[in-house]
């Protein structure tokens, strides 16, 4: 029983991280119809930026994450301008290939700056707390709380602010949105910025319980793709449900089946879902 409770919290924190990373990817897909393969690389850059602000610049942890989110948002917007904007009318294959180019570039760049070493980011949040008779580290509690706070803030942003509503409008009806005077360019940039900021928060949160290295984003990227397919490309609630589901499934499969099962489950679920519903679980059937 304590094992289960412990794993439940592990699953919850992993799910929180997946959520934050997945929402950005799904937003970008919803608005621009681009599966951004460089999302994992952005996650990695976000972790390094947090590391930089925390250890080299000596900024407090939470502020370091916020700064990293800000800087990465800038990088995300830059990426939209330089890479994806010129391709906005090109076939989807072009986006994916260009995104792969950006991913390789970021890997190399980060390795050139910080080297290929594993780096460890010490979190100032230490110690453990007893919940339901089991020890849970404060860092994991922080992850879950932050994820929930960010998700609430995001929902508020999208539902209640002009910018957020413009994103939602474009996501639902591109033509209609441009007819009512929403500038799709602006929305594209905003989306990319937001997606990058969210993934930076995810990376900043998880960095202390994991290691930093230039290819750290590759693993999570594949998982995150699985999540947004699972939830339906472009669906924010889908990303949230999918994120927590996969985080929990992974942890439980590892615990009660085997380590390999934990690693493979994401892909198996993905293939199954797509085989049954080719457009994902939570998408409305697209009318042709």
């Amino acid at each position: 029983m304590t094992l289960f409770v412990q794993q439940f919290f592990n699953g919850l924190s992993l799910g929180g991280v997946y959520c934050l990373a997945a929402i950005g990817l799904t937003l970008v897909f919803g608005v621009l119809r681009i599966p951004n393969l460089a999302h994992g690389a952005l996650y990695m850059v976000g972790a390094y930026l947090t590391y930089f602000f925390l250890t080299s610049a000596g900024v407090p942890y939470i502020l370091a994450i916020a700064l990293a989110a800000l800087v990465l948002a800038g990088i995300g917007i830059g990426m939209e301008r330089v890479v994806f904007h010129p391709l906005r009318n090109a076939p989807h294959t072009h986006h994916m290939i260009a995104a792969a180019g950006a991913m390789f570039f970021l890997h190399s760049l980060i390795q050139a700056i910080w080297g290929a070493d594993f780096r460890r980011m010490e979190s100032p949040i230490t110690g453990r707390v007893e919940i339901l008779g089991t020890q849970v580290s404060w860092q994991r509690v922080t992850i879950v709380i932050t994820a929930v706070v960010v998700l609430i803030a995001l929902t508020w942003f999208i539902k209640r602010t002009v910018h957020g509503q413009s994103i939602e409008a474009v996501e639902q009806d591109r033509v209609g949105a441009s007819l009512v005077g929403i500038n799709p360019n602006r929305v594209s940039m905003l989306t990319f910025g937001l997606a990058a900021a969210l993934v930076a928060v995810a990376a900043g949160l998880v960095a202390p319980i994991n290691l930093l290295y230039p290819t750290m984003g590759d693993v999570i990227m594949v998982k995150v793709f699985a999540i947004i397919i699972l939830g339906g490309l472009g669906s924010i609630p889908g990303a949230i449900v999918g994120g927590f589901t996969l985080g929990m499934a992974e942890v439980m499969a590892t615990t009660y089946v085997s380590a390999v099962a934990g690693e493979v489950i994401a892909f198996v679920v993905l293939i199954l879902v797509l085989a049954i519903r080719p457009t994902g679980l939570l998408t409305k059937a697209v009318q042709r």
Partner: protein
Amino acid sequence: MKLTFSIRGVGALLVAAALLFAPLILAEQNYLLRVLITGITYAIAVYGLNIILGFTGQLSLAHGGFFGIGVYTMGLLTTDYDWSFWGALLAAIVLTTVVGFLAGLLALRTREAYFAVFTMALGLIIYMIISRWEDVTHAYSGVLGVKLPENIGPLDFSEPATYYYLLLVFLAAAAYVTYTLRVSNVGRRLLAIRTSEDLASSIGINVGLNKQLAFTASAGFAGLGGALFASAEGFIGPNSSSIDLTFELLMFLLVGGVATVMGPIVGTLLVLALFEAFQDFQAYRFILLGPVIIALVIYAPQGLIGRLNELTLRWKRRRAAAPKTPAGPPDSDSPADPNDEKAEVR
């Protein structure tokens, strides 16, 4: 017009000649020959990728995986099960084709981005199986001593040059199939699907079936490339089925030119030559190559060969059609000028 027709072939002939004489030029250069041999096995797989991406417009990210199935079929059958090279080669082609067919049944229910992501997951699963199924694939330990082809009469394939020519035969076959596709009704059906699935079905093309066939053939070629790769290298590991390989194959194709006949081989060798040139800063080569890929996609998405085709087309048109003005629409009653250049529709 006949003249230009032959000019067109000259380029292809030159590439062919360069490949044909490479072992003579590279005598004593085992290393370069080796790079060339590896390149050709990749190029064969790239021809496969070209069928699905170039001709039907679907981006498959499973091709590294299919390549890996070919690699491991050849690798395991010729070692653990002591098959002959030729038997294993046949088995590799058959197996990848069957896997491709089955995968296509599921994958082709999805389209565009979903198809890409689905095939990516597929490729990763194949990679996971190869890298984890220790009892069968030996996982990370890899497979040692993959066989070279058995001698046929006086042909001794342990001689790199002889093996090279064997590969060249397969390469030529792959290129020829692509050429045939390009100029035949089969290819036109596929290209029609790429441009518009709706329009294609409105003229009676069975979109699903044609895509299925294309994907299956495409996987088969990737498997063939993989099997030859395994034999050429002698030692294989799970990396030969990784997603990174998929992206490399994709880059080769993109640089050479999607849906062209010479694109896959030219692109593959060109990029490999670039890799060689950048050997010294291997670790950082993508600081340069990453932006190059992006620039290519933005400014020359048709690839080198595609771009050259366009240029010549424009040049030819300027020359041939200079006096013609896009006059008002023709009177439907007047027959078209029969003296107009005899149409060769290719």
